[in-house]
């Protein structure tokens, strides 16, 4: 996750980091379920988009020059009213300008807010010796603090995917416990499998983060909430 930024810096010429919007478009074309996003250029457009998506929504900055949206204070979650959306729009644009005055701002993405589910991360990176690898882990602090991720080298089989899911220390969280229902493991397997075939097919993809993915309870699927793809120009 962190290396994506470093890679972006050192390979700025040969590599291109796609925006969330562009990344999700690629994912959608490849059969991933993603949260629908509308890029609003004005406050009014944002309100319109929120109404047609349905509340609550999330707003995020859309700029090719801002990779870490949270660092630029460019994300607002769980907005339930027109007033909330208007205020969030103004704050996000203002914050982005002061974070990086030179940043090209394409607008603010308005998207469905998924409150349910467990956050997981699925990612890929091209290793110079072994080719593309795919990682999986629980999202948030699990991946940041504990580096609790498993990895396989492309190509791999469904058996490998099952093993990599079981391999993480936090696997019990997915199995269901007194605070949460069992997560949709078959949907997770399918998501990892789609990631594997995407990075196997498209060798221009150098790195990819699907983070977070909301893994819903059994039978309800998995939704990619945020995504970032870095590829060769």
């Amino acid at each position: 996750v962190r290396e994506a930024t470093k890679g972006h810096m050192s390979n700025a010429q040969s590599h291109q980091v796609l925006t969330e919007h562009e990344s999700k478009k690629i994912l959608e074309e490849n059969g991933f379920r993603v949260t629908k996003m509308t890029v609003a250029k004005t406050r009014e457009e944002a309100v319109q988009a929120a109404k047609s998506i349905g509340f609550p929504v999330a707003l995020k900055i859309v700029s090719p020059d801002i990779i870490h949206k949270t660092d630029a204070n460019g994300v607002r979650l769980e907005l339930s009213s027109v007033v909330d959306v208007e205020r969030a729009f103004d704050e996000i644009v203002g914050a982005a300008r002061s974070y990086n005055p030179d940043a090209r701002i394409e607008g603010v993405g308005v998207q469905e807010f998924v409150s349910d589910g467990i956050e997981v991360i699925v990612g890929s990176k091209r290793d110079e010796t072994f080719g593309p690898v795919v990682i999986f882990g629980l999202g948030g602090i699990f991946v940041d603090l504990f580096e609790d991720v498993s990895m396989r080298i492309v190509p791999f089989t469904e058996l490998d995917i099952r093993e990599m899911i079981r391999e993480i220390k936090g696997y019990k969280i997915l199995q269901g416990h007194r605070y949460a229902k069992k997560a949709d493991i078959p949907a997770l397997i399918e998501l990892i499998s789609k990631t594997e075939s995407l990075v196997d097919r498209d060798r221009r993809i150098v790195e990819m983060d699907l983070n977070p993915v909301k893994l819903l309870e059994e039978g309800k699927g998995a939704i990619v909430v945020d995504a970032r793809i870095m590829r060769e120009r």
Partner: protein
Amino acid sequence: VLSSWTPESCESGNMQAHELSNLFDPKTIAVVGASSDLTKPGARLMAYCLKLGAPVKLFPINPNRPEVMGKKAFSRVTEVPDDIDVVCVAVPRQAVQTVVEDCVTKKAKFIVVFSAGFSEIGNREQQTKLVQTAKNAGCRIMGPNCQGLISTVNNVILSYHSCLDTTPVRGKIALVTQSGALGGYLTGAFWERKIGISHFVSTGNESDLEVSEFVKFLVTDSNTKVITLFLEGIRNGPKFRQAAEEAVRAKKPIIVVKTGKSEKGRQSALTHTGAMTGSDKVYDALFKQLGILRVKTMEELIEGAAALASQPLPTGNRIAFISPSGAACSLVSDVCDDLGLKVADLSGKTLARVKSLLPEMAVAKNPLDVVYVYGNPNARTMIGDLIEAMATDPNVDMVIPGLTIGGTVANEVAAYCLESIRKVREKTSKPVLFWWATDRDSFARAESLFSKNEVPLYTTPERAVTAAAIMFEYADYLQRRTK
């Protein structure tokens, strides 16, 4: 039958001669830099070859001498009258290029370059030139900066490593190493423990021949059952993966020690053989995916390999543990969970049989503390009979018996245990891993007795249990893949 390997699985792909078979079994060897000065590599190689090697045609190359160690010497490789399979090169770096050119003219098949001072110190240019020269003529290079090759099964010595001062022991474990010095140490360590190896290969800078190609050869080699690797980094990822997949199909386990886990380790790998190491986590993933057994230490590599080479694979992870020490029982119970093993629940029938063999004050259970051996009327036979009783229990997958007694009187107990283990082998295909925590002399006596019977012997219960866990890891991988 000593193992679960079928002849088919070992010999698959052996129908036609492998392209490296001449390297492992050459008929003519030239030694460039041969002399009688035993402080020099060329002389040591000659001496080991003459002392331990098969009666191949050996041609010393030395422009200043008419003969070396009783063999007629030639001034250049091109002067040798016969065709040459392998040329060993032990001359200073500056002279290597000319030798390689001579080898090409002579149409030698393989060149083993011991000389150092190439890519491992940043000198890529000269190394690339060597490979270009050789490759254009279809000649393969091992090294440079390597410790060569020892094929124990063919009595072929293409190395000058001092491990050859230890009597070579022939066996089913192959070792391929990117570190020449530690590889030589490992070879000697196997032999000192009376554990046989089939081939030792030190790949050095891998300018041409690399680890993957040797693994591929060893998969097809009917003398090799277990492949052990000491790695710093893989040069060609897909090729290595392919070789490892072939090993899975042939059901030949690969055990690896791989350095570079820490940042510091990675730096030293870079300067050591010029290997570019990938991120260690990628290696971990690769090993898991391919059923390659990664161990932390050289001891685990030796001891895991010894178990896999001599014992049938277990069908499960339930162990029966026998010990004259209650503390050893606790120790093993404590580590089992972390190692992925379970303490077996013995059947009622087994418990009754166990009870009948024990001294009165001992309790029939697993892990089993027999309390004492000597002083018991059936001291000589008790442990052996217990092994048999436990091994025949359907709830048990592996038996790990052990002793702490010493002195020559222990030999009788050992002999009876081996007799019981032989019977167990006839009745079941369950591994038995024996440990003997005693003084060095007693251990050494037991070790030579056990090695003759192909039963691995460990110095401590933890080490025996660790070897059991390595065996189970492999068996479990195969079971999952072949479901």
